[in-house]
């Protein structure tokens, strides 16, 4: 129970910070974007509850799935939900996360310095690997289907 109350407080706090960033960077009014933010906070809390009381699957899985369900065509109110959350810019949500992460990184700087250039190298291979493997599979499948 304590975990849920704490989660709710953090989500509301970050929600407010996001709404301000959303106003500055993307021009959506605070009140205009408020219903969408309320929906997002509610989805997250449902996810935390499901993780605590249903199956102990990662909260992310629940949250993504719930977000998808409430905007699925045919779900009651889905168009309204989609219109509301549309006022919360996707990028506006990324800024506070990276701000918290950035403040926290300070203490990992020595470790980061050690792994830094390696991570850059790895990430280039990761991007190339995903792209080439996916393109290869798509190529073979499209050929097989006679699309190309």
């Amino acid at each position, binding site marked *: 129970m304590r975990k849920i109350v704490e989660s709710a407080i953090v989500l509301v706090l970050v929600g407010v910070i996001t709404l301000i960033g959303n106003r500055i960077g993307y021009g959506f009014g605070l009140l205009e974007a408020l219903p969408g933010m309320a929906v997002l906070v509610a989805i997250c809390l449902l996810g935390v509850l499901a993780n605590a009381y249903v199956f102990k699957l990662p909260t992310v899985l629940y949250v993504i799935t719930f977000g998808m369900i409430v905007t699925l065509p045919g779900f009651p109110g889905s168009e309204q939900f989609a219109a509301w959350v549309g006022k919360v810019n996707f990028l506006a949500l990324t800024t506070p996360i990276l*701000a918290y992460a950035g403040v926290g990184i300070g203490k990992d700087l020595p470790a980061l310095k050690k792994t830094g250039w390696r991570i850059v190298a790895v990430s280039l291979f990761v991007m190339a*690997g995903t792209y*080439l493997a996916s393109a290869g599979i798509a190529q073979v499948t499209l050929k097989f289907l006679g699309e190309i």
Partner: protein
Amino acid sequence: MTDAIKNVKVHLVVLVLVCVSELIGILKFDVGPGTLVLLPMLYAVFLGTFLGPKFLKVVNDKDMLDSSTLVSLTLMLLMARYGTLVGPKFFEILKAGPALILQEFGNIGTLVIGIPIAMFLGLRREAVGAAHSIAREPNVALIGDIYGLDSPEGRGVMGVYICGTVFGTIFYGLAASFLSVLDVFHPYALAMAAGVGSASMMTATVGSLSAHYPAMADKIQAFGVASNTLSGLDGVYMSMFIALPLSNKLYNLLYRLRFGKTEEA
């Protein structure tokens, strides 16, 4: 966690960082055939890093610790938004066909190449976080959920996430141009492969492919968007149930091969 919530200073610092970053806004630079895009989140992380005791001394060790414990929870809001991006398109994607679904397994290519290279470069558990996927938001959230973002796995996934954010669009834009010149892959295959779960990377790829093949531009874009939305839909399930377990298996196998024993916890 309670400590972290009560740390008003951290929240205020974050609020200031968000305001400053959003005021700067999105910056774009043309680099060769691609575009380098800088987003407010990059300024936020960059500025945040310099507030620590080593530089500007605005935040102390406790503030930094409090701040990082909050990251995985703040990610949830973004994940909720992510779900709402996929929901409205769900049925269109279902119709999009087997090629789209199968190319999703390209993610396995990532870890097969990425984990050995990461370990060769001397990374340990960071390798699993860094190379199990292309490390977009859902993957970061998943690793944060399972290992915590303070763990080696968490540092790995955050590192690749940030690199991808900085270099991703330019990398994909250039790779698409280069590969279309080589003429090994059909433009449709290249367009489908662009859907890695990042709208900006997909846009960069589809953009340069459309420039190379103007006659096919419509279908190239449709394939790119469908594939990207599909990644948003199945990406987190794919990572959780296939890519992450495989990464751990491969890591353990390579660790044994190299050091002749299993890793002590």
